[in-house]
């Protein structure tokens, strides 16, 4: 770098000028992040604007294209009990706490993704509750009456139902744990995720 004599640029030759610039930029960005975090945490708390309370598992969940927003949005409909039971807030939360520990202890995220985060060896679970495959395949295959019953049977014994080019190993999930994870899936499918995954369950025929 040639020596500058122009006084306008002489400040830029001094590392301290750049140091102060770095410190002030960082400070401003951190303040903005802090403010956005306060708002975001409010929106994503269970019962917040984008994340329904855990008792949403007592209702029917759907996923539809909102043409005003041009985005796929979850819908929350009529009462649709899970395992034929109506859960109160405490009961639903206890089930979710259990489910999250199952998800962590069985390392689900190192094969699957949640909201697209995790590993890519298994399918994304964001909207798994809404997957048409339950009605189409797993309910008949597991000889179940309902989607939740099929899900519980599959989670407890995935090795009994091999399909396609992947197979889930048996992770020793017991019935209580499988029911909790099923409830968790139902709750997670109700989260508003800005349209991810786009068009879930709507296959475009390739020509």
């Amino acid at each position, binding site marked *: 770098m040639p020596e500058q004599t122009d006084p306008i640029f002489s400040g830029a030759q001094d590392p301290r000028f750049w140091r102060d610039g770095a410190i002030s*930029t960082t400070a401003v960005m951190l303040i903005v992040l802090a403010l*956005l975090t306060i708002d975001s945490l409010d929106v994503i708390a269970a019962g917040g604007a984008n994340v329904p309370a855990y008792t949403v598992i007592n209702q029917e969940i759907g996923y539809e294209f909102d043409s005003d927003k041009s985005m796929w949005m979850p819908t929350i409909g009529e009462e649709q009990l899970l395992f034929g039971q109506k859960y109160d807030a405490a009961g639903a939360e206890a089930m979710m706490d259990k489910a999250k520990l199952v998800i*962590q202890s069985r390392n689900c995220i190192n094969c699957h993704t949640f909201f697209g985060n*995790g590993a890519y060896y298994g399918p994304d679970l964001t909207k798994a509750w809404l997957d048409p495959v339950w009605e189409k395949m797993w309910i008949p295959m597991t000889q179940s009456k309902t989607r939740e019953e099929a899900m519980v049977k599959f989670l407890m014994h995935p090795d009994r139902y091999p399909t396609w080019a992947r197979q889930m190993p048996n992770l*020793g999930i017991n019935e209580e*744990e499988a029911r909790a994870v099923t409830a968790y899936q139902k709750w997670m499918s109700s989260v508003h995720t800005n349209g991810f995954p786009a068009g879930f369950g709507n296959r475009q025929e390739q020509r």
Partner: protein
Amino acid sequence: MYKSQQLALKYFAASLFVFGLLVVAGLLAAIYYVKFGFLLGVLDFSVAKMLHINALIISLLMGFLGAIYWFLPDELGQETVGIALAHLLFYVLCLAVGIVVVVYIFVQYGGSDQFAMWFINQGRKYVEAPRWASIGIFVVLCTLAYNIAATALRARKITGVIGVLIAAMVPLTLVYLFAFPAITNMSVDLYWWWWLVHMWVEATWEIIIGCILALSLMKLLDTPRRIVEIWLYLEVGLVLGTGILGLGHHYFWIGTPAYWLSIGGVFSALEPLPLLGMVVHAIYDAGKHQMKTTNKPAFYWLLAEAFGNFIGAGVWGFMMTLPQINLFSHGTQWTVSHGHFAFYGAYVTGILAVVYIAVQNWRQIGEVTGNAWKWAFAFLNLGMIGMVGGLLISGMAQSFYERALGGSTLEAFMAGQSNPWFMQGMYARLGFGIMFAVGFVILVYDLGRMVRKGRALPPRNVAA
């Protein structure tokens, strides 16, 4: 040679050993994709994957620790304060890593209780290590921060680079605390988890590797301190100026408000800027010295870092990060392509440069010669580019067929996974992965050859 530098050499050796584990686990993980039922129920994909990415984190952390312990005493003209404690913690860390790996492989899963979180694995990507081991990592990081700060205080000297390094230790250590909680609400859990992962990988680690490169450039090319410091501050300003809100690109789809789409999109589009700056800096310095140096391998790895960081982290990241693209590319092998290129380009290459600098100094080798390093350089870089290319093709096929056309269901996922283009990419990844592994073996051979060749630098008898 300072005691701090002896510790650095141990960290480099451990880092390379763990990197070997990473390569083995990575090759295994690649096989699951091309061979149905591979090791099912014995060592499931999730275990291989966990070993692969945990080895990555530990190997890079050990590399950073090694580089810092290597340069610190030279930079401050004084033995690192508290080096005995740091030495002790090195052995504790190695033992802990060994125990964790054994538990991962032989115990694998726990029950849905706190015991599993404390002693088996936490099942949160990158920070799966059970809590007892995570406490160990936290203590090691705190000790490093203490070593740097206390040495600067004892030396009554603080250079620009050391100042930046001390400042970076604060967020590095603090955000690691997000490795511990098990928050029920997945949206909130991922919100904080990204503070840790993003602020490490796309902010503090970039700053630490920037400091390490600054110190390397001064050693390798005698670049004047004033210029190195101006570049470093500029880089820090740009990395944090774009990277702190660049965090927003992880908040597109986890339930967070829609304003993150715009904020994340804009700021992560700017994230490549500081990385481009580093390329300019590296080329400028290389040209000024007419590419003359006594340590060609270190110099070439340094150039590989500048380009790899810009292309792998910057360009590959930008390519998939605008929300309009990310809606379809998120959570596919496209991400894996970017991840491999970025971690390798930004960090692995930089650490290898420092390893060559350290070994040259330690064995008092006047000029690093031989051809083995060239083969290692070629095989590792081509192997990585091949893997990245294969994964990109698989990821694009997955984005289009599973996501855009298929509607992301289980059936669409399976159709995507068996798509011929997806499978070709997977075979290419495995093939180039083997090439990468060969490159790693040659690299270790070359370093071993250097160690046998020279004479060790005598230890200094100075009070710590």
